[in-house]
């Protein structure tokens, strides 16, 4: 006799495997629906996966590097070493295609960062990939080659970061939250240097989380006390001298196989950095994320959209690793960009989401 048959309610509720076209639901979801407040009109539920497609949303405070992350994503997907398999990126519309071309040129040829987003716009790309031969591939005996083929839609309502705080006054902010709610996976970008100076990142996260929870509650999509999303928490600008030096000071870095610094325990680094940035709201951010998402659905990364400056033969010289310099008050990219942990969060979300189906 199962626990359900005995009348017990499992907590946290386990996600039940759903058929295609259905929303993934927790076993005890109806109990939570009873307490749902009035849902705003036209609230979309978290979007269910269509076929193997998963929708991933991007989220972050101002200057956290959302636009740069997007611009670097295609370059990271074309990683020559094939660490993430082979990927094809197909723009869903003209706007997304133009953004892809323009931002890639800015990063690689003009050596400057894409201009920060000032107006909201929906960008969408279809990522089709094959993980065969990579460390992310499933290697079960008898599994067909198709099992390693993935497809996801990376859809971003590229809104200025400030919209995530001003949810009540700004229509675009509400649209951005609705877009996040309709996604299956979330990439949350956290800029520690902005937090060290301004200490206001929690304001952007907290408002969005509250609205997101309310939407999911209204749609009956809450998984017990948790949001149904998978989330990748990315500590951005890892190549920044101040962030990287802090990580080195805390002994959180190692040299990876490519000669590039990596953080073996990014979650531990996140918590340590929250304490090292004493007086900041980073600790509150960690608490808020852990209380809103199921622990098994939270992934931490130390990312850098442009990566470290590398030597001609590859590898990073720890005496001159900076890839950004400031000219006329504007940051500029010094050399070739080497996206670091940009595809990893997306792959981790994909695999985590796929594992549940």
């Amino acid at each position, binding site marked *: 006799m199962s626990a359900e048959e005995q009348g017990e309610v499992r907590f946290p509720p386990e996600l039940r495997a759903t058929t295609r076209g259905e929303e993934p639901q927790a076993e005890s979801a109806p109990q939570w629906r009873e307490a749902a407040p009035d849902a705003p009109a036209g609230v979309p539920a978290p979007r269910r996966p269509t076929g193997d497609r998963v929708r991933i949303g991007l989220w972050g405070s101002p200057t956290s590097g959302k636009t740069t992350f997007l611009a670097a994503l295609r370059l990271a997907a074309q990683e020559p070493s094939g660490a993430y398999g082979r990927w094809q990126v197909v723009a869903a519309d003209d706007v997304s295609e133009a953004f892809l071309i323009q931002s890639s040129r800015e990063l690689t040829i003009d050596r400057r960062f894409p201009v920060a987003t000032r107006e909201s716009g929906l960008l969408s790309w279809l990522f089709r990939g094959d993980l065969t031969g990579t460390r992310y591939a499933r290697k079960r005996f008898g599994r067909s080659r198709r099992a390693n083929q993935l497809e996801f839609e990376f859809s971003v309502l590229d809104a200025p970061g400030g919209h995530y705080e001003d949810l009540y006054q700004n229509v675009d902010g509400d649209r951005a939250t609705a877009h996040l709610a309709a996604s299956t996976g979330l990439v949350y970008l956290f800029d520690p240097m902005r937090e060290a100076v301004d200490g206001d990142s929690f304001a952007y996260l907290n408002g969005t989380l509250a609205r997101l929870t309310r939407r999911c509650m209204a749609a009956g999509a809450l998984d017990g006390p948790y949001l149904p999303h998978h989330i990748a928490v990315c500590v951005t600008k890892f190549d920044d*001298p101040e962030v990287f030096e802090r990580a080195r000071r805390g002994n959180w870095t190692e040299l990876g196989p490519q000669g590039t610094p990596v953080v073996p325990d990014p979650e531990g680094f996140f918590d340590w950095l929250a304490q090292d940035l004493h007086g900041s709201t980073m600790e509150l951010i960690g608490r808020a994320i852990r209380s809103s998402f199921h622990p098994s659905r939270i992934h931490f990364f130390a990312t850098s959209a442009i990566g470290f400056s590398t030597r001609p033969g590859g590898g990073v010289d720890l005496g001159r690793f*900076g890839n950004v310099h400031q000219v006329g008050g504007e940051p500029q990219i010094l050399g070739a960009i080497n996206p670091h942990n940009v595809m990893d969060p997306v792959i981790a979300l994909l695999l985590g989401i796929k594992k549940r189906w």
Partner: protein
Amino acid sequence: MTRPQWGQSDRTRRLAGEDDAGHGSPGPEDAPEPCPVCRTRRTAPRCPVCGWDGDGHNAAGGDRGQEHTAAWRWDLRAALLATRAHSPERGAAATPEGTLHPRLRTLLRRSHSVEDGHGDPSGPESPAAPAGDGGADTTPYGDLSGAVSLLTALAAGEVDAVCFFGVSPAGLAMEEVGRDDRGALGPRDDRAAFLDWRQAVPWLRHPAPERQFLLAGGIGADAPYGVRGVPGTSDTAWETPVRHAVHEGLQGLLAAREHGRDIPLVAVDAAPGWRWPRHALTLLDRCAPPSATLTLRPGDPRLHDDPRLHGDRRPLAGVVTAACRRVPLRYGYALLTRPPDQAAEGPAARARLLFPCGTRLPDSGELPVKVPLLASPDQDATLFALPVVVARGPHPRRWSVLRTAQTRLEPGRRTTVTVLLDASGAVRFEGPEPLADPGADVAFHFDERALLEQSPAPIPRPEPLSDLMVLLELGGEADDFARRTGFLQAVLNRLAAVWPHGDALRVGLIGYADHAFRTVGRNRTGEAPLLFWGSGTAREAAHALPGFSHCGVADDFGAPMEEALQAAGSTGYWRTGSRRALLVVGRRPPHPPRQGRDQTLPCPAGLDWEAHLHHLRQRLGLRVIAVRDPLPGLPGRPVRPPTGERIERFWEELGRQGRFTLDRHTPDDVAVCFTRSAGRRSAAAGLMTDVPDEEPGPSHTRYLTIDHGLTGGTAQPEGR
């Protein structure tokens, strides 16, 4: 209260033969018998201090009762003295430390009421006047005249020093006043000493009110005489440690006198009427009779010293300093000026007396003297010096600079400077023109001696060789670059005026543009961004400056100055035996050798600017003068703290021997700094020209003529 231990016979017997009268010196053998209670020499049967009447009879208790009354009266008097010296807060007055003996608490409360005027001091239990033996208190409290007369003799050189020995409720203190070469008096820190009563009398470990009650002569309640655990507050218990303390305090003075030093002594009685401090002064009178006596009330504010000022307790420092300030100036204070009709062979400068010898320092406020001056029209520079000297005689070699200020004036302009002398003998300036203290700018050390000796040397000497290398930052906007080159051109023109021809001064230029930071191609290191010129004269260098042009900026917080420093050290530019200087005119610091928390990119060649700077200074003996072009405000986020710290640290290190800022300093400042380092003093800031009194009739101003010791001075300082 019953005190059976205070038997009259015991007390009389114990006190017999003692010579320490409460308020007088030991008398002859046939002197009246001392009072058995307070041991005052009585001139009448009734003691004027404690009121004991040996011949009278007390109706209440006979002799015993009378003695009790007298003892109470005496203790009340001691308590009153102690209260005056130690005035705790009202309410907790009697028990400042909470554990006072009931009798003493009663006494203190009673003394408080007497102090407040609530009690009746003329009543049967009232104490006599604390400072006198029953008569009117005629002591001249705070009269410094005796001490000032001795200090005046010291200022005149008649004695070697003056020693102050003070006794107060706090302890015994010693101060020695000396004279410096300017004739100024002041206590010598290394000769000051203080001995707390608790150290002098080891058993005196009581709370402050009880301790002062005992010091004032209080007898107390318990047997044999004393309050709470005093080991026999007998005279023997007091006299030995007091004698020892006085002898110990006088040892240094007596030893100095044995070596022939003439050191008069001033006794400072800061506890008048207190029995044991008075006893110490009596012993002092026997060992080293004072030349003058100074009496102060225990509450005199000058006795309340602040240990933070001296690092140790020095209760007499305030009194001694006040006495020193009453001594007239031994030497006059004068302002150095240029004579208005300076002839070629005439004196180069003269001293205008501001405060003649004999001037009394003001008790408060400041003593002003207004001096009309003229900025010499024949001088190119706009920087003028205002040195005030202590005129110890007609010969300038015996003069010493008391204070110097500098002012900026257009040549030919007149102004009036006010010189103010304060109560401490210090001098300061006020004027309509902005005045600056050269000491405030570490980069600009004023060489006053150069001003005193700025006449041409009688025997021409070969001019020393000087080499100057200029590092000029080329990166930046055209306007910024033009401002830097304009400033540098002005400096070079000033130097060209000092070294008009010949190769006594050789100038070289190195312009440094930004690194290319190329990451494409075989060579990733930045191309050598240096541009050389020279060497030549200062005028040629000034003409060559337009050949340098500005270039783009590759990093807001780093320029390849490290490359320029390396080039300056490695070239064979420097001549043997020459005086060398490096002038850096730039806005950004060099690139660091390695990337750290700084936003700045490291030097592509990995050069360490600190190592090269050290090489220039230590190996080549260069003096480095830094001229900083302030960083303009950049758009975007503010400069991060590590970057800001690195920038400030660099300019501080680079400008250790001379640091100037483009907006704050003028080319004159830089030129003067370099000419001084090159051994040329003719470019030092000039003196203001004296403006004679315009009023008809005899001038009230007196001068000393400086003739540089060639013919000897003839004038003498005169008072006005």
